[in-house]
């Protein structure tokens, strides 16, 4: 199966747009936390923005204060929907630029990020797509953008695996058990019961560590067989799906799924 760059971009754009659409709806659902009696009160946050120039502060105030931020979010959801239903070669660059800039603004509203890693990857994918759309005819730009997205995604799994495997607590399976019972991530009872035994916890941990550390094979593995990248992508999908069930990390699923077309496209160079 040969994946064209255009198809990879189209698939990536639709997945990330779907993710952005749901992210926006979630924040609209949480609108009470953003108002003047909520948690992230604009009056409090502006203290922190005093480090910025006046003009930039005015832009932030116009777009991020309550209730204006709801307009930003509503438009973001609408633009996300528009990108889903528009063919890739007709998507105006302004729509992608809006998704990227609104994502950056929303991260500022939450003092850096709202949901950590998923925000990082959303920005990575939207940056790649926006630049690719600016110069759609350039093969060089397309190639660089797809490699940028793919390398960030592959590196994310690889680094996450490497930093864990260095710790004894991860190698013994103890760490996974700890995170499963921590109040912040408390896993469903079924999962906690399944991983109650040291052996099962260790097996699950090592399966995850090997998957993460070997993830660069999603790129190189095509030299062995074209099935290898597809297998890694399928496992990655299952991994994020289980993270939704166990930790509730739904935003990661869409942000990372949007990188898989780029990974597969890049892996074809090794076939």
């Amino acid at each position, binding site marked *: 199966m040969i994946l064209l760059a255009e198809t990879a971009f189209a698939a990536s754009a639709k997945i990330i747009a779907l993710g952005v659409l749901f992210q926006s709806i979630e924040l609209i659902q949480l609108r009470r936390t953003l108002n003047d009696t909520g948690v992230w009160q604009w009056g409090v946050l502006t203290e922190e923005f005093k480090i910025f120039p006046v003009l930039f502060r005015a832009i932030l105030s116009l777009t991020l204060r309550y209730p204006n931020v709801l307009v930003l979010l509503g438009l973001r959801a609408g633009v996300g929907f528009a990108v889903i239903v528009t063919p890739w070669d007709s998507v105006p660059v302004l729509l992608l630029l809006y998704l990227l800039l609104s994502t950056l603004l929303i991260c500022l509203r939450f003092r850096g990020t709202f949901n950590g890693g998923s925000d990082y990857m959303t920005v990575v994918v939207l940056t790649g797509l926006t630049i690719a759309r600016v110069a759609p005819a350039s093969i060089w730009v397309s190639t660089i953008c797809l490699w940028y997205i793919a390398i960030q995604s592959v590196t994310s799994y690889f*680094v996450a695996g490497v930093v*864990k495997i260095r710790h004894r607590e991860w190698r013994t399976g103890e760490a996974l058990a700890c995170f499963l019972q921590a109040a912040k991530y408390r896993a469903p009872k079924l999962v906690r019961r399944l991983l109650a035994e040291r052996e099962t916890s260790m097996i699950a941990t090592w399966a995850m560590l090997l998957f993460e550390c070997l993830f660069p094979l999603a790129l190189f593995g095509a030299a062995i067989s074209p099935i290898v990248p597809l297998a890694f992508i399928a496992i990655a999908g299952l991994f994020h799906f289980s993270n939704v069930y166990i930790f509730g990390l739904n935003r990661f699923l869409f942000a990372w799924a949007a990188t898989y077309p780029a990974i597969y496209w890049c892996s074809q*160079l090794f*076939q």
Partner: protein
Amino acid sequence: METSNILFLALFFLLITALACLKGPQISDRRVQLFRVLFPSWRFFDVMGETPTLYYRVASSSEDLGEWQAALEKPELRSPYWPFNIFLNSETNFVLAGYSLVEQLVSDMGEMYGEIQGETQGVTGRDSEELERSVSFQLVDNLVRFQIQKNLQPTPTEAKLVYQFKVRSEPIRKVNQTAAWNQEAVSIAGAPVDILVSKSYTHNFYFGEPERAAARRV
């Protein structure tokens, strides 16, 4: 694919491994912090450290302040409906963002007072005022009031209540794995430490429609 390209990529991942093993410098500049989404970090779940957890207590007067209760609890998974959470999971994401606020407060306190070793209750005088004026403290204070308001609903009334909150550092280093997994089976290395206990604050809570509450405040 040429051998030289494969070698180049292999070297790239070797370099990534080396960088991942190094502990990068902590950049405390607020501008960098605010734009940190532009500098992705993929070091997920690498720290087996402590989780700062937020607790509060509330009563009609400061003498009646009783048991501490957790302010942020991950909502229970409703089994038949959980696939819906793939698309929308705002409650859990709010709890995670709340934890980030608390972690940021602890990090700011570390910068303000140096390494936090124990209870910061009774930070007095100018220190206390500086902490209370900080954005992190005010946001956590807002979070506590928001949770009190939410948890005491749906009584449609208003009340002047006294509340207090604390941040407790809970080490999650050791887990004694046994066949019966439950809270009792978890043995924590070291005791939890209260790293911040706030003063008691009095606040007018409005329980009911948020729009009406806002209008009343005005």
